[in-house]
């Protein structure tokens, strides 16, 4: 009985490998608590800045009711108070072991997406969105995904072309364009 049902269980499978997966034993870059406290200080500073700006705008009452800065000023105070509470709470718990925020391998992979994305946004201003997107997709697939160059270039070309046709021609959504599009009169 058992062997029969086992034979039936063998069904077709889809298998996708991840050759550059982060190792599970990679050392931690930083702990969750450190990031939490740093982020809280950032938000605290932001709250201070916004509170100051709203105090300057006017946080009181005049003849027409609350002034423009009234609600945002008190919201900044609430934000600051919540941040201070969070910082205090983490400070009191500092003796205990912290959870990992991100491991070195994971951080490397996150940067592998983030840096190309940043470059993409930067280059878009000169090359236009469609050329930049061709470079991003082709480069990312070939370098980080280790996919054959011709496949990467072809995919990137078709994708950028499809995007151009969809947005620029079919839906009239205007995107930043560069010298290449100008060559074709767009």
């Amino acid at each position, binding site marked *: 009985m058992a062997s029969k049902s086992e034979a039936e269980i063998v069904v077709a499978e889809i298998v996708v490998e991840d050759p550059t997966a982060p190792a599970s034993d990679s050392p931690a870059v930083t702990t969750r608590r450190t990031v939490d406290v740093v982020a809280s200080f950032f938000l605290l500073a932001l709250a201070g800045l916004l509170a100051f700006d709203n105090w300057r*705008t006017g946080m009181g009452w005049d003849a027409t009711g609350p002034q423009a800065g009234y609600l945002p000023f008190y919201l900044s105070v609430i934000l600051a108070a*919540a941040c201070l509470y969070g910082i205090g709470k983490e400070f009191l718990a500092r003796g205990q072991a912290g959870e990992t925020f991100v491991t070195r391998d994971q951080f490397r992979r996150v940067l592998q997406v983030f840096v190309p994305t940043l470059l993409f946004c930067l280059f878009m201003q000169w090359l236009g969105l469609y050329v930049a997107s061709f470079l991003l997709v082709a480069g990312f697939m070939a370098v980080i995904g280790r996919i054959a160059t011709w496949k990467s270039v072809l*995919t990137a070309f078709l994708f950028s072309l499809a995007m151009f046709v969809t947005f620029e021609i079919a839906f009239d959504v205007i*995107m930043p364009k560069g010298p290449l599009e100008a060559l074709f009169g767009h």
Partner: protein
Amino acid sequence: MEAFGLLLYGFSVLLTWKTLALMMVGLILGIFVGVLPGLGGPNGVAILLPLTFTMDPTSAIVMLSCIYWGALFGGAITSILFNIPGEAWSVATTFDGYPMAQQGKAAEALTAAFTSSFIGSFVAVLLITFLAPGIASFALKFGPPEFFAVYLLTFCSFVGLGREEKHKTIISMALGLLLAGVGMDTVSGQLRMTFGSDNLLRGINFLVAVIGLFGISEILLTMEERLALRGHVAKISLRVVLKVWKEMPRYWVTLLRSSAIGCWLGITPGGAIAASFMSYNLAKRFSKDKDSFGKGRIEGVFAPETAAHASGTSALLPMLALGIPGSGTAAILLGGLMVWGLNPGPLLFVEHKGFVWGLIASMYLGNVVGLVLVLTTVPVFAAVLRVPFSAIAPMIVVSCAIGAYAIQNAMFDIWLMLVFGVVGYVFKKIGIPLAPFTLALVLGNRAEDSFRLSMIGSAGDMRVFWSNGLVGSITTLALILLFWPIISGGIGWIRSAFRQDASPLA
């Protein structure tokens, strides 16, 4: 029966070739969004929103809501076949769905998931059809104090009932409300928090923030994971479908209970995620055979899927009737309404009948068509997962950039999107919830306006929020919810104190 006539009118708005074609496009895109890792319902809708800028509002909302239904269906495919929940609300579906697939019953599990999804949203649409018009016409009597009280109730229930640490929910919400206020003040016309920047003059666009928070940050988070996967291939035959459908009536209690849970948590800000878990747990608790859950029991697929869909659909009820979204995706659709030049709120039912009833009719039709579509095309969508993530990730990044730029044709928005991407990544990892932020950002200005109009009306007297029975009870309820953790803690403390008093006597 007035609703019935209006519904027929809605169908007449809907039944044009163009709208039907857009519906199909929306559903197919939605299923893709649901299946692909690193893309979910809210960001799929946010990214594809720019496609609709040049459409008329009815076609636009039909397409976008169909993307949403599609994403709800798609989430189940990866949960069952690959044990990877495509969406957070389909995590509970993996508990019994994946074991079923391992036993070679993938087709049964998928049929069960799709059919129960359909039932869940059908119940929720019925609720919307017959309840929303009534709520909207009741809300037409609301003045600024009543509206502010309802906004307050929404915000407070997030803080009081959310599972996250309270101070983190407050941080998220306060930040969202603050950023909503950047730019021109709508009441006095004064500039605030712009620091002299022309770019900040326009304010921080809600959709740009959403694309960054959900789209870009999701890519960063997905890259951290090991992306290898292994799963089953399934094909659904008509025989299996009929077999599952024949079994279904036996589980009517589970289906009904799950629909009710879903509708309730969808209207209140509990959300689809909480609904799916709660309904799974209750199905397990009320079952005679508890141990068989988690080992491939079909009821364990019915329960979470019904609830998730009921909740996802009914989240649109408060959005349509009151202009208050019940979920992140509903918040984005609300942002869309504003882009298309509609004013969300109860007046929608009066001023834009074609829009509202067209949308409601599309929920009926979209779910029927969606069900047929997923039942027949599962193998195609499962095969999408063969596409390596290194090809999908840059394409999603490009789509996000297009979406963010198209909203106001501003390069500044692309940088803003990147900043929000990093913020979303950090917030998710340190446990600051994003839903309150989204809600606060989209509702911030309207909440502030209603507060200030109330204050102007009452000459600064806070007692206006208790000036009549209706506004008074909503405000009081809001405050009770805000302090609920303290109140329930207090009740528990009093009880245990009584017990200690009583125990020496016993």
